[in-house]
């Protein structure tokens, strides 16, 4: 098994970028606990215990001259020379990292040499820190978290064009994320306002997308809202990952809601969501099963609107 289970050659691009962008100095411990050559192994043993570390560098005039590991201490206890100076017993066969090396280097060093820590040197060959596998894992986990957050945000606003005149916008919606509820519909509305649609049409799309978005937040395990902008219509599609609507006919009735007290106290669960969507749609369809519900709302532009938008030429 690898010490740090990250492949430095063919991991996802984002991970590769990360381990090349991060330098050893970004992950290492700057607080250096070291001893001089005159220190005894006993002193090192105490330092290890007090600071919960397993290796102590031996330093002379800011230069690294050796390292004492936990193994060296055990040896010393076994053979009875624990009170002797470190100079005689420290490991001098040193493998070091430089502070400006990318983290990918450090990862491959850990795999190659099986040490638990490496001393880190500056360009001037002075010791500036220590790096352990834990330092690297912790920092990577933190960075990966951050990258995933960014990715999620990007997915929400990915725009693709299907090659024709249709532009498509897609937003992922999380379960019970009341904090961001309305974000997708607001973006969709912004887009429509720029396109010069009539306020009446924008209102219809805003109602449909908002209700469908809230439904995903309130009732589903999470899902996705997609808006397709055609030359003579807007299609809003809401898809979720379940649990599905038990009785679709009942859900379509005004006033029927399965929302709990807490959700109602926030002003949701009036039982008007789906009926509102249907009433503003020119075309409405709903399909539901335990793997998810898909609602499609199509809102057509009026003839005048199409002329106004220039998607249709007037006949003389």
């Amino acid at each position, binding site marked *: 098994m690898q010490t740090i289970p990250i492949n430095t050659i063919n991991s996802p691009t984002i991970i590769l970028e990360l381990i090349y962008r991060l330098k050893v100095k970004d992950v290492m411990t700057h607080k250096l606990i070291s001893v001089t050559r005159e220190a005894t192994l006993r002193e090192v043993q105490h330092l290890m215990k007090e600071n919960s570390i397993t290796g102590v560098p031996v330093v002379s005039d800011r230069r690294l001259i050796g390292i004492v590991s936990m193994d060296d201490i055990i040896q010393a206890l076994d053979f009875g020379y624990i009170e002797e100076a470190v100079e005689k017993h420290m490991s001098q066969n040193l493998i070091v990292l430089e502070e400006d090396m990318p983290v990918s280097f450090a990862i491959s060093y850990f795999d190659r040499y099986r040490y638990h820590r490496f001393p880190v040197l500056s360009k001037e060959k002075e010791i500036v820190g220590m790096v352990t596998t834990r330092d690297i894992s912790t920092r990577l986990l933190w960075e990966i978290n951050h990258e995933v957050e960014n990715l999620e945000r990007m997915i929400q606003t990915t725009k693709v064009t299907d090659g024709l005149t249709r532009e498509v916008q897609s937003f992922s919606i999380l379960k019970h994320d009341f904090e961001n509820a*309305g974000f997708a519909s607001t973006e969709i509305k912004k887009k429509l306002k720029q396109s010069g649609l009539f*306020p009446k049409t924008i209102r219809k799309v*805003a*109602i449909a997308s*908002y209700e469908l978005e809230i439904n995903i937040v309130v009732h589903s395990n999470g899902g996705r809202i997609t808006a397709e902008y055609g030359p003579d219509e807007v299609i809003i599609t809401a898809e979720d990952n379940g649990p599905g609507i038990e009785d679709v006919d009942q859900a379509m009735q005004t006033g029927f809601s399965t929302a709990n007290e807490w959700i109602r106290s926030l*002003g949701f669960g*009036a*039982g*008007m969501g789906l009926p509102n969507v249907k009433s503003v749609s020119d075309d409405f369809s709903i399909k539901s099963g335990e793997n998810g519900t898909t609602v499609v709302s199509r809102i057509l532009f009026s003839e005048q609107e199409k002329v106004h938008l220039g998607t249709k030429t007037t006949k003389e």
Partner: protein
Amino acid sequence: MATVEQIQDELNYKVRQAKGIEKTITGGYTGDLLSDVMGNAEEGNVLITIQAHKNSVAVASLLGLPAIILCNGRTASDDMIEAAGEQSIALFETEDSQFTASIKLNSLLSK
């Protein structure tokens, strides 16, 4: 034409967020069920409600409502004030009930 500013000047409702205060108002809509508001409030209406959270701002923004009046002494949460600022939707608080606030707003509109 009445403006949002009159809600502050004439009704003495406490302003929590003043951006958008210059907008004109065409009427009001009173409701605490957001889907009901969504389906029935018209652009330019002031929303009279007790829902003192961010989702009311989302609804107001989608419908083009210029202001929200929070009734019965409800106080706006910080993130609601922030969201309202971003969307330029004026935010007011009052001890009045939704019924009283509606009557007062109506008298202001019919001047």
